[in-house]
């Protein structure tokens, strides 16, 4: 049996306002079933809100988000890696295994899977440690392993490598490339233009709560259309 | 974690397996009776004599009567005749049986500013305290002792509730706490003799006046009416009454002494 994909996702005329402030302003955006989307844009342009909106953590004030299925099913096949990963007050093993435990799997099975994914992201030596003792890079890796263990169709990542050193960044990028190669649809935000160049198949560029560009990565970097995107790529400050 | 729960569980099991009591009844008694230590002598003898374990609820007379009225005890042993008679006439108790009496004493500071020790009767003693406005601590808890004290003030021509709190302090607690208060304030206080003799925190206080027949204090035993409260153990209450009024108990009561002083005079009349 072939399980129908939850993709594509379509955002139709969505606005998000928080405490009277407009965060996203009448956005329409369609994302295909395949690809590695990177959402870029200056601070406060609404990148995080856009991801949370798609994942269902943020309700639209106007408009609607539609997946190729109901919202309830959609979220079960997505995971979200937050900018500051939530370290549950448990061991690394129990953190990674947590989503599977929720599904009611036996401890032996979840532990085996947790070990496998911990090894994948390179923190197998930390399995028995309380998660709070992990470094920043290790925390991101734990969050990735916890995201990958459910083998999701869509992975959202919010600035997964901010504040990490080069080694950790490279390791995480490798993991993401692997996941993408294995069919995961990745939608992430970053500030790092080099990272976007290395990873993205397409770019969504946000400015002031609007989508100012949505194009293939090569097109975007070689021939950005909007003035804001050109300025951003040049390294100017965008007000 | 799990070990902690195991330990807690163990403690629970341990404590739930408390030995079950056989024949037992509950009796509300006054603090003055219990503080005297007489109950420590009588309870084992009761167990030995009639095989009944008597569980004492030690409270003031007011509360003891209340417990009896609610049917929460099987019998009461108190000392406030008028209240007891109301208790019986209202149908809460089957009858009133006098067991013994003791007496009240006036205790006060050693230097005795009101010269209570020189009084010839209790009315004189109280008048002297009122006149000199010497600090006096009252039970103030509607107990038998408190009621007795109020009646003595009345006998002396005063309304105690009109006294100035500057010298008349109504404590609102049991005999022991009241004696503690009096000891702390170096004040006059009326106590039953037994509580006074057993009291260990005397400080500067000493016994100044006693012996006036008005100060005698009759204890009576009242079984709670099984008509009103079918669950009360009236058979055990009757058994206990017969034992308390019998020759063995009466001689035990007469023979009970603290520091060489007899505390209770048995005066149960045979039926």
């Amino acid at each position, binding site marked *: 049996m072939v399980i129908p994909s939850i993709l594509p996702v379509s955002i139709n005329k969505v606005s998000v306002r928080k405490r009277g402030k407009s965060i996203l302003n009448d956005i329409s955006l369609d994302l295909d079933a395949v690809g590695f989307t990177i959402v870029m844009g200056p601070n406060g342009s609404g990148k995080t809100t856009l991801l949370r909106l798609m*994942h269902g*953590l943020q309700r639209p004030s106007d408009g609607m988000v539609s997946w190729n299925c109901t919202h*309830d099913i959609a*979220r*079960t096949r997505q*995971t*979200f890696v*937050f900018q500051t990963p*939530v370290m*549950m*007050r*448990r061991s690394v093993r129990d953190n990674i295994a*947590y*989503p599977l435990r*929720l599904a009611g799997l036996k401890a032996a099975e979840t532990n085996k899977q947790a070990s496998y994914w911990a090894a994948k992201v390179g923190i197998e030596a930390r399995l028995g440690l*309380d998660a*709070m003792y992990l470094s920043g890079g290790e925390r991101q890796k734990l969050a990735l392993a916890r995201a990958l263990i459910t083998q999701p169709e869509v992975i959202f990542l919010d600035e997964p490598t901010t504040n990490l050193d080069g080694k950790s960044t490279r390791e995480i990028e490798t993991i993401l490339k692997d996941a993408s190669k294995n069919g995961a649809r990745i939608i992430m935000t970053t500030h790092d233009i080099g990272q976007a160049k290395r990873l993205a198949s397409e770019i969504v560029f946000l400015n002031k709560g609007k989508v100012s560009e949505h194009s293939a990565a090569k097109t975007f970097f070689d021939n950005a259309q909007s003035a804001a995107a050109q300025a951003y790529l040049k390294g100017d400050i965008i007000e | *974690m799990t*070990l*902690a729960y195991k*330990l*807690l569980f163990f*403690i*629970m099991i*341990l*404590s*739930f397996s*408390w030995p079950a*009591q056989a024949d037992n009844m*509950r009796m509300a008694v006054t*603090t003055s009776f219990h*503080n005297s230590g007489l109950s420590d002598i009588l309870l084992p003898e009761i167990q030995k004599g009639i095989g009944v374990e008597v*569980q*004492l*609820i*030690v409270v003031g007379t007011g509360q003891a009567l209340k417990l009896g*009225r*609610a*049917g*929460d005890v099987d019998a009461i042993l108190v000392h406030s005749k008028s209240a007891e008679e109301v208790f019986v006439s209202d149908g809460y108790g089957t009858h009133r049986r006098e067991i013994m009496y003791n007496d009240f004493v006036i205790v006060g500071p050693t230097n005795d500013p009101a010269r209570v020790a020189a009084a010839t009767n209790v009315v004189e003693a109280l008048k002297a305290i009122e006149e000199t406005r010497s600090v006096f601590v009252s039970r103030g808890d509607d107990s038998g002792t408190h009621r007795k004290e109020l009646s003595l003030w009345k006998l002396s021509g005063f309304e105690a509730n009109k006294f100035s709190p500057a010298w008349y302090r109504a404590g609102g607690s*049991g*005999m*022991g*706490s009241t*004696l*503690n208060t009096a*000891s702390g304030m170096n004040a006059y206080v009326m106590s039953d003799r037994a509580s006074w003799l*057993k*009291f*260990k*925190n*005397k400080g500067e206080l000493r016994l100044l006046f006693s012996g006036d027949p008005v100060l005698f204090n009759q204890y009576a035993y009242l079984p709670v009416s099984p008509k009103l*409260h079918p*669950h009360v153990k009236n058979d055990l209450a009757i058994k206990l009454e017969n034992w308390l009024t019998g020759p063995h108990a009466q001689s035990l009561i007469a023979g009970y002494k603290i520091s060489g002083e007899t505390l209770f005079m048995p005066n149960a009349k045979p039926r």
Partner: protein
Amino acid sequence: MSDLWFGVLNAFRLILSFDADLYEIILRSLHVTVTAVIVASAIGLPLGAWLAVNRFRFRRLTIAFLNAMMGLPPVVVGLIVYILFSRSGPLGVFGLLFTPTAMIIAQVIIIMPLIASIAHQAIRDLWADYHDLLISLNTTKRQRMITLIWDARRSLLTASLAGFGRGIGEVGAIMIVGGNIDHVTRVLTSAIALETGKGDFALALGLGFVLIALAIAVNIIIHRLSKTERAGQW
């Protein structure tokens, strides 16, 4: 001052004498309060978690009520339980008055709000931490509560121990509903009240120090067993 000194001496004398009556009273104190803590925790911890993860109309009112209940004088609780379980009261048929069970019920009422309130605060903070993750993972309310209770377990242990502290030192309620009956409902605190009433401060203080030692011992043992010392930062 000498009373205090005699109190300490008496405490040692009491403990070392292996007096059967003393150990019986200690065991009964533990029985009553530990049982009450377990029951109150079984109610209070889930209640605290429930209040933290649910939004409903009277939530603030419920929390305010719970906090107010923490300050409830034990004597009032004792009186209410007494009236309920008195032979003339609505629950009189059970004949529970002047039994350890009645004391446990009174203590559950006294310490449950304390446990629930501390638990609510601890779990509310953790929930703020976990909120996005648990929503993202599509957890049910039940799963959220279980996860939060389990992960906040060390703070919750503190909540239960606070309940134990309030219970083991409580005298107002258990005097009224227990009656302080020798060998039946006498516990450390009511024994202390009794000895104080007799003016025997040395013995009362001795028992008081035994009570303090007991409370400390229970805290240390529980912390040891739960290994909070070792991984203390959570």
